[in-house]
């Protein structure tokens, strides 16, 4: 037997345990799923209403109704993956720090960030993933073409990059509760920041829009999270020139860099952790 913990098997065990737990409270699970689907339905209704009045989101941007539905599905896919895998855990992490129960996680012979980030998988959030996939199929049926296999594989790769960026942001904010104590507001902050990722980056233009777009692309890279993968799905928006490829290349860098930075902050936070027990 090696000293190295079998991370993949542990992950499967986490997934299985969480599923067993979710299935124990089945009615609750169904209500949670329906609630988040209903929330998405309301959002979709809002966009349908907007496209009653406008043919496109921004003149000349190429984000028509069904192109934007592809964008929206990408938001759904990425957010539902982040919520399924990490949301409950990040929430719990602040609580572990506050109560001092993080001691038990530190004692386990496995990487603490891995354990803290993944031990509780929230299966009910996967409903939105299904919703997103259905919306993609519907949008393509209306657009009248299908994505190429290359586009699909690039898309999937960049969805994972997006998940990595959002995860890094989330775990960084959660870890900061070591220094700040109660940080309910930081969670709100997380929602408000990711709020910027929900629309095509082309809408941020003008005197204030340009600096904002720059800030949320290069410093806090939430604007590339959905934008880059979504563009691969839309035929007319696929990168063609070298310049078009700069952002996808940057996104790869941003994903790796934000994981590294969040890892560093996480470890700094652990070093500053003072248990809460007597």
């Amino acid at each position, binding site marked *: 037997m090696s000293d190295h913990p079998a991370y993949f098997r542990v992950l499967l065990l986490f997934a299985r345990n969480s599923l067993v737990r979710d299935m124990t409270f089945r009615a609750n699970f169904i*209500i949670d799923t329906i*609630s988040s689907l*209903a*929330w998405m339905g*309301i959002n979709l*209704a*809002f966009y349908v*209403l*907007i496209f*009653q*009045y*406008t*043919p*496109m*989101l*921004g*003149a*000349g*941007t190429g984000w028509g109704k069904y192109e934007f539905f592809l964008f929206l599905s990408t938001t759904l896919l990425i957010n539902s993956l982040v919520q399924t895998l990490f949301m409950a855990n990040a929430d719990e992490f602040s609580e572990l720090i506050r109560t001092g129960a993080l001691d038990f996680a530190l004692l386990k012979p496995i990487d603490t960030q891995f354990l803290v980030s993944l031990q509780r998988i929230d299966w009910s959030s996967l409903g939105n993933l299904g919703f997103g996939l259905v919306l993609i199929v519907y949008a393509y049926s209306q657009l009248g073409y299908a994505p190429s296999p290359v586009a699909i594989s690039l898309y999937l790769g960049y969805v994972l990059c997006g998940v990595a960026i959002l995860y890094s942001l989330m775990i960084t904010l959660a870890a900061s509760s070591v220094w700040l104590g*109660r940080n*309910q*507001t930081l969670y*709100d*902050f997380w929602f*408000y*920041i990711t*709020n*910027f990722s*929900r*629309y*095509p980056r*082309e*809408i*941020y*233009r*003008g005197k204030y*829009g340009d600096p*904002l777009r720059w800030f949320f692309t290069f410093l806090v890279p939430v604007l590339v999270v959905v934008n880059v993968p979504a563009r691969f799905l839309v035929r007319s928006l696929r990168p063609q020139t070298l310049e078009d490829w700069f952002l996808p290349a940057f996104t790869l860098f941003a994903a790796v860099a934000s994981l590294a930075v969040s890892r560093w902050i996480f470890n700094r936070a652990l070093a500053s952790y003072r248990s809460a027990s007597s």
Partner: protein
Amino acid sequence: MSRASRKLSAEVADSPESGESSKSLWGGHLEGGWSWQAFRSRAAIWWTILRISIEERLVYRGDFALGTLMRFLPIVTQIFLWGAVFSAIEATAGSSQVAGYSYRDFIAYYLLTMLSRAFSSMPGLASGIARSIRDGTVKKYLIQPVDMLGFLLLYRVAHKLVYYLVAAGPFALVFYLCRGFFPGWPDPLTLAAFVASLGMAFLLGFFLEATLGMIGFWFLEVSSLLFVYMLFSYFFSGHMFPIDMLPGILGTIVHALPLQYLAYFPSAVFLGKVTGPALAWGLATQLGWVVFFIVASRRTFHLGVRRYSGFGG
């Protein structure tokens, strides 16, 4: 009133007033003990409740002021989203109106709904009532000479007062920065109607949510029901968009619901979208809904307490 709570109230009969009439802090039975003395002691209770609630609220002021500023961040996205929508409309159709709203109107509308929501939103009220029914803490209102709705209303008034105190800075700052989106100050009459509709939005929000919370007397778990209400409210109160955008029969139905008075109506009044007889009719209808929900919350509480049974100490 249930058997258990009747028994409990008998045990505390040495309170200033006893029996049923002890629950008259806010509603009902004033006629029995009406005197200047009684009024002064009541006012003293109200004042104490208000003061305690204010002090409690100020404990987390730092967290709170930061949270208030954060709440304006989504407005930034809305400004750019609608900017993009209007740029496309102007490029294709040449017109620059959506359902009678210009781009500036839209941004002003969103800012004004933030203000209306600051009056009408009641975070945790319905769920708090339902929880106190479930875990039995509702007993304290049944045995102490304090009326639950009156207490909660004062508590909420205190929270709101502190909120306005802390939020006045961020609100003034954001409104000043965005002053270009506003058509200017409306005439005094419109302004008075706006203030009246905000005041009634507060009362409507309170009594509507309180009535919803009373459902807890009949169902143990109401959180999913409240979530459905929240969704409806978000969409149909005009928080998400001006409800004038809704087409046909849907628009007519939504205009008949009380939800619009929580966010849409005050904002539309300020922007001069509702004028003349429609304004008078709107204010009267809003008042009607306030009265309806005051009665409904009292009635459901009364019916609920008759069903309620408390156990243990």
